[in-house]
């Protein structure tokens, strides 16, 4: 094992998945498989990851009975409950962070890829970093 393997891998390129606004302003990402990942990742796996993310964001933004109740209660207290209560969105964001970490560990890191949580990019893009593959030929 040489020192190179212990160093941080260099970034080869980054792929950005833009938002899909066809359903309005809700948070949804395009599921189009980027060409740069063709050699690295299975298309089905990729689509599954993005679709799950989209579903999680839809859950966060869901306007239903529970969120109405939360909203009405918040209005009655002049929105001061937001100071002490975790909102539905924040709860789901934590879930998303855990999911992305899990996906990175299981699927993406072994293929030299890294998924960046969209919240770190202002929910604009899903950034996938492709690392240079140096492990080939280093004798495993």
């Amino acid at each position, binding site marked *: 094992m040489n020192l190179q393997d212990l160093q941080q891998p260099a970034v080869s390129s980054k792929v*950005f998945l*833009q938002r899909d*606004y066809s359903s309005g302003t809700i948070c949804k990402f395009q599921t189009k498989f980027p060409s740069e990942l063709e050699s690295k990742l299975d298309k089905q796996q990729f689509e599954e990851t993005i679709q799950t993310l989209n579903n999680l964001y839809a859950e966060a933004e869901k306007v239903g009975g529970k969120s*109405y109740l939360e909203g009405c209660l918040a209005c009655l207290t002049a929105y001061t409950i937001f100071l002490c209560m975790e*909102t539905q*969105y924040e709860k789901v964001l934590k879930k998303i962070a855990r999911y992305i970490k899990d996906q990175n560990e299981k699927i993406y890191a072994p293929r030299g890829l890294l998924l960046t949580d969209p919240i*770190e990019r202002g929910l604009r893009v899903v*950034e996938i970093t492709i690392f240079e593959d140096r492990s080939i030929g280093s004798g495993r």
Partner: protein
Amino acid sequence: MKNCDYQQIEPQALPTPTPIPPPHHGDSSDKRDEPRRPRRKWEVFPGKNRFYCDGRIMMARQSGVLPLTLALILVTTGLFFIFDCPFLVKHLTSCIPVIGGVLFGFVIITLLQTSFTDPGILPRATPDEAADIEKQIDNTGNACYRPPPRTKEVVINQQVVKLKYCFTCKMFRPPRTSHCSLCDNCVERFDHHCPWVGNCVGKRNYRFFYTFIVSLSFLTAFIFGCVTTHLALRAQDGKGLVFALQESPGSAVELVICFFSVWSILGLSGFHTYLVSSNRTTNEDIKGSWSGKTGDVTNPYSHGNILINCCSVLCGPMPPSLINRRGFLPADESAQTAGMDIELQTLATKSEINVCTQGTKDLLESATLSLLLSTSCPQGKPQTAQTCLDNSSTVNSDPSPELSTSCGARHTTNSTGDTSSPHHTKTRSKKSKQATVHIHNPAFDVHASPTSSDTGPSSKARDHKGARFTTLH
């Protein structure tokens, strides 16, 4: 492959996620020993905003007339409790101060929430993202020297919506997002920049704003009613109004303030209730995006049902702040930015120049607008109160639609042009302090500026308010 192949590691390539603060990694657990303490993201925020309490509270750079708004509300309610409540409690019911107190609490809390909450600012694109988008734009354009189109079309609910490219934030703006020139940020579901609250009104603080104006209209109407009742009761038995006013001089002040405010605030509440029920923003309404003037256009965001629209706007889940003000910059980045102090200073002076040119640009535009408006004022739209609030953001981007709005806008753009100049001189020195001195907390410098600029805008704003009311009648 060479064994001694060294490659420069970019900070963005580091797999450690940025929200985890450095103390967890142990490399800056003793900040006292670190020559450069880890910086929080709000300290390097590119927009024109002010941050207090270590990033917990944020406002626009120009606080507008927020001090005046607070002063008016506090003075009127204070006078109400001092002069009117004792009399009315004795002669009518003790519920009156209770109701007044609850309404006042609502008004102040929601006002402060509107002013201090992130309106839904979109962080600017990272350099990699911007480069990727540029590449995409260049690919779609031709190889001739005509600049590639900077708009993207998307179909939402069978309606074609054009997404514009923001040159400052280097990204295609999501639908309903607009760039506020006063705050220099793209704000999601941008409604308007409100000088009365000193902040933009957008996706995250619209419900606070709406609750503020509704509760303020109730409070103003309530105080007006109580003062009228009080004076009427005092003036009974042939004593006369003059006698009543002499006995309770505070009531006269309240009467004047409430009489002039209640119409505009009620009008504003009514207008925003219409906007909420049809799921539109002030920006869209003023630009006439969905009014059907040009062909068959409908609002693609409306759910079709008034109740559902209201619920989705006011009771929907609270979206998170996307700018992560209190997150720490990664250790490398904070060291890099600390090392680039000189660059920051020049950038700061550049942005001040931008602010100054913005100010003169505002003045020039308002001057030309006033010239044009004085010659022809084609429409007197009922939402005169509203257009006063939406002035600078749309004036800078699109001066032409403003000609159709009422003359009220003219007075406010003039005064914002005036109010912006005292801010420039005072914030300039603060800004340079902020850039260079980073060992002691820049928040202290920022704290000093609003108090020093208090006297400036309020006197001018009084004229502005007076001017505004003359145009309403």
